[in-house]
């Protein structure tokens, strides 16, 4: 999956490996969703990110008649299709009331967390290729199989809307947010180590790869977070 530009741009092997593992992961069975369902979420998220004229946050992707990944949308309940689009394209507009409505619409809380894990990994890999001006690699074919159904003991948190692995609120909100779906967090951590900083180096403010210094990484992070209007 090494992509090259005319300028002979080569992607670091650790980043290529992490992205390839992430692509394999999102199209494989998870704890609550089959590989086909997760691949459909991934296709929908990519379609949302590619949408040149995005559907407004308050509109439904399913009833708009503009869903570009029709086959993927047909594989999932309408509430999931709408949620995937909203998270991929308008994450800053989400509220606790919106999250509670997703549960009322029938999305299981732990399945919701897994769905978030799929969408954020898609946003990462897509985001790299989009920023670098490279063609995004295609998703692999879904891996057949049923969800394994194994989940950690979870409890309510004060730092997140979603349930988290017990004990709650011992870690930062962004770290415990996917803990109800540990394989999703593991993939995020793998990507983060290749894209940004290995988790165990987070406290090392002089850490760098030889190009961007840590403060320069933080400038990129802050500017991107501003563009996405992310308060956290």
């Amino acid at each position, binding site marked *: 999956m090494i992509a090259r530009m005319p300028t002979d741009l080569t992607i670091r092997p650790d980043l290529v490996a992490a992205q390839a593992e992430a692509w394999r992961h999102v199209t494989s069975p998870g704890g609550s969703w089959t590989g086909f369902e997760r691949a459909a979420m991934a296709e929908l998220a990519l379609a949302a990110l590619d949408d040149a004229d995005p559907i407004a946050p308050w509109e439904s992707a399913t009833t708009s008649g503009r869903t570009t990944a029709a086959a993927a949308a047909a594989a999932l309940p309408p509430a999931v299709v709408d949620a995937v689009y909203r998270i991929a394209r308008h994450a800053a507009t989400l509220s606790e009331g919106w999250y509670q409505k997703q549960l009322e619409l029938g999305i299981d809380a732990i399945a919701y967390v897994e769905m978030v894990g799929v969408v954020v990994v898609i946003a990462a890999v897509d985001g790299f290729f989009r920023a670098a001006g490279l063609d995004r690699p295609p998703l692999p074919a879904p891996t057949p199989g049923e969800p394994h159904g194994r989940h950690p003991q979870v409890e309510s948190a004060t730092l997140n809307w979603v349930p988290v692995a017990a004990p709650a609120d011992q870690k*930062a909100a962004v770290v415990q*947010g996917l803990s109800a779906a540990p394989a999703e967090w593991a993939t995020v951590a793998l990507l983060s180590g290749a894209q940004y900083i290995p988790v165990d180096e987070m406290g090392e403010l002089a850490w760098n790869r030889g190009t961007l210094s840590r403060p320069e990484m933080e400038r990129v992070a802050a500017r991107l977070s501003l563009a996405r209007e992310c*308060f956290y």
Partner: protein
Amino acid sequence: MMLRASTASQLQHPDPDSTSDDVVGRRSPNLEDFVGAVVGTDAAAAEAARADLVDQFGTEWLVDASAVIANFEMMTRLADATGACLRPEQLVASASMRDELGLDAFPSART
């Protein structure tokens, strides 16, 4: 910074903008402009920003800056979709900065 996950460690340092010895005084690209261009909607501006970064600093910079962008395309959505909130002490510590930057006006503000 994994968003605010590393805030605690940063607060232990009086100058979070300090740089390590190997990068002090070196020439540095305008990364804010690069990010703004490549996540914006103007394809020509994005391509020009990439070309400028590569011409001045090399292809490794394009890869590594794009990788950090990718990380925060991931982490911002993770935070917002899981309803990540700051701890009370983080809210207190960040109050003046939030006020100065207008962060409390973000739709994603959960204070």
